[in-house]
Structure formats: structure tokens, C-alpha cells
């Protein structure tokens, strides 16, 4: 079981996240007709409890959309939306926040972002990555991230998360896109980059 990743390995994973998030930002920009900025992604291997803290306050109520990945990469893609960001996104999509369409539209946005992100990741690494159906919950951030870590990273003692933020220009809306690979998934990614 790997517990440490070198700076070179983390840099390589960051670059992958950069390529993925850049492509996802282009898709989101086309969908919303607005410019989207991407922050430099973070990649860190943290003890599981610290990994939860790194995503935000555990008691914060957020909407989480999770997409299980399979194929050559076992991982979970997770997007977390604080309540005000859900409202902003719905507004930009011309939907009422509480309408029955809002939840499915949010799922669809995440689907599109995931497909672009992972398509770029697959093209770069030569991996075939399958996307499962998105699942959406509204709950405490700690409960959402903890439940996913228990499955995705549970076998390891550290969690590796690639965190990218997409910023909708002119609106204070920052979408956090997390990729949480299983231990085997990380080794697979590094192997494809010649660092395994």
C-alpha cells in the first residue's frame, strides 16, 4: 500500500487535473455562454480526516453530486455546491432553485463537466474511463465526503484528492471538482504517465 507520493508524482497528477479542469471549463463556458476561469488545481495526499477538512467545514450544508467511475480508473468524481452556488447556477440556467428541474439540471451540469474532464484525462493517459449515473444528495459536507472516502480510499491510510475550482466570471460562484481515486486508481494513473 502506497502512503506517500513524491512531489514529481503529485505535479504530474496536478497537470492531469489541470488538463481535465480546463476542458471542463470550456464545456461549462459553452453551456452558460459565460467566461469561466480555472484555478491551479491542488493535489494532496492527506490522512482521511484531514482530507475532509480540506474540502470545507464538516457541518456546512451542501449539495453533493457523485459520479462513480470504472473502466481503467476506479475513482469517484464529486462536485460540492454550497446553497448559494446552487441558486446562482439555477439562475444562470434560467431555472427556479426549488423546481423539479433544478435537481436534474444540476446533475446534468455535473455529467457534462465530468465527461469533459475525464474525456481529457482519458485522451492524455490512454485510459478508458466509464461514468456511472450521477447521484445527488443534500447534506452535511463531512457526511458526504466521509461516506465517499470510506469506499474510495478506505483501504488506504491516505486519500489523494485532485481539487479544481471553476470560477464563473462576474458571479461569485466557484465550483469545486474533486477526483478521488482508489489506491489502485492512483497507481494506474501514474503508471500511464511512466511514473508507476
Amino acid at each position, binding site marked *: 500500500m502506497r*502512503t506517500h507520493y513524491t512531489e514529481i508524482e503529485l505535479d504530474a497528477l496536478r497537470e492531469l487535473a489541470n488538463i481535465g479542469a480546463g476542458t471542463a471549463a470550456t464545456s461549462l463556458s459553452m453551456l452558460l455562454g459565460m467566461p469561466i476561469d480555472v484555478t491551479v488545481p491542488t493535489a494532496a495526499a492527506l*490522512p*482521511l*480526516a484531514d482530507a*475532509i*477538512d480540506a474540502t470545507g467545514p*464538516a*457541518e456546512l*450544508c451542501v449539495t453533493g453530486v*457523485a*459520479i*462513480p467511475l470504472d473502466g481503467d480508473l476506479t475513482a*469517484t468524481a*464529486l462536485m460540492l455546491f454550497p446553497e448559494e452556488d446552487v441558486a446562482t447556477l439555477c439562475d444562470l440556467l434560467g431555472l427556479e432553485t426549488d423546481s423539479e428541474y433544478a435537481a436534474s439540471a444540476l446533475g446534468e451540469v455535473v455529467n457534462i463537466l465530468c465527461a469533459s474532464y475525464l474525456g481529457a484525462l482519458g485522451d492524455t493517459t490512454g485510459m478508458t474511463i466509464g461514468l*456511472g*449515473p450521477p*447521484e445527488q*444528495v*443534500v*447534506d*452535511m*459536507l*463531512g*457526511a*458526504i465526503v*466521509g*461516506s*465517499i*472516502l*470510506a*469506499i*474510495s480510499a*478506505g483501504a488506504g*491510510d491516505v486519500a489523494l484528492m485532485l481539487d479544481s475550482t471553476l470560477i464563473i466570471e462576474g458571479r461569485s460562484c466557484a465550483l469545486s471538482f474533486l477526483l478521488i481515486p482508489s489506491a489502485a486508481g492512483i497507481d494506474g494513473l501514474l503508471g500511464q504517465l511512466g511514473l508507476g
Partner: protein
Amino acid sequence: MGDISVRMGELVASADPAAVLVSIGLGSCIGLALVDAGAGVAGLAHIMLPGPGDPDGRPPGTFADSGVPALLHEVKALGAQRLSAVIVGGAQMFGAGGASDAHVGARNEDAVRAALRAANIAVVAADTGGASGRTIRVRVGDALVTARIAGGSEMALFGRMAVVA
């Protein structure tokens, strides 16, 4: 004194009457409180997986099979003798076949209950299962254990009065 946060995989025991032990945002994880109101001792473990697993190099409360005995050891070291258990959490946050499935929540609860049975400790109250995350709070001074779901109000599960009765 402020709340003492017991994060995923961690466990804390205390005999400080002013201490409040808290695990925020339990999803599939289990918050296990062991209290001895008479001795003024309580402990809280934030258990992540049923086990079996090698706890080496990991927080001691990571697995149910090793975390329950570890918490028991800690509270007994502080003088606890007549222990009652309260369990909170073990939800299934995502639906069947989804990202976080595999029924970890239910398997966590089963494993914690099995470990408590093996140690002859009764579960006197529980708020488990369902699809919502919870926060557990343990007030050491009066052995009050509460649970709260996201957006909900705090609910008392156990307290000193229950022991007297």
C-alpha cells in the same frame, strides 16, 4: 471549554466534566459513545469501516473490530466501569449501485454492535440508518448524548436521568 472534535477514525475519552465530544457529519460512519455517568467518564469513537483491518499507522478508531476495544480501553483507564453504549450514524448517503454504496453504513453498525456484544456492553440508545448525515454530541459532565441531522434540531438520546431510572 470548547467542543473536542473527534474526526473520522479518531477516538477520545475524557473525565473532564466540562468537556463535550463531537463528531460532525457522520455519514456511513458510526459515532460510538461509551458513557459511565456514575464515574463521570465518557468516550467517543468515529468509526469508518467494519474491518477487519490493520490499524497500524492509522487512527485507532478507523475499524469497528479494533476501534471498539480501543475506546473501551481508554474509558476504563479513566475509571469507567458500568458502561452504556449509544450509537449514531451508519446512513446510506447514496442509493443502491451508486458512488458510495456497498452498504458500508449498515455493515459498520453491525460490526460495532457485534464488538459491543463481545464486550458485554448494552446499546441503550441508537439513531442509525436512513439516508441522512448526523452529528453526535457527548457531554461528559452529565452523560448527555444527542444527535442531530442536517437542518434538523438536536435530539437527546441518553442522559443521566435514564441511568437513574
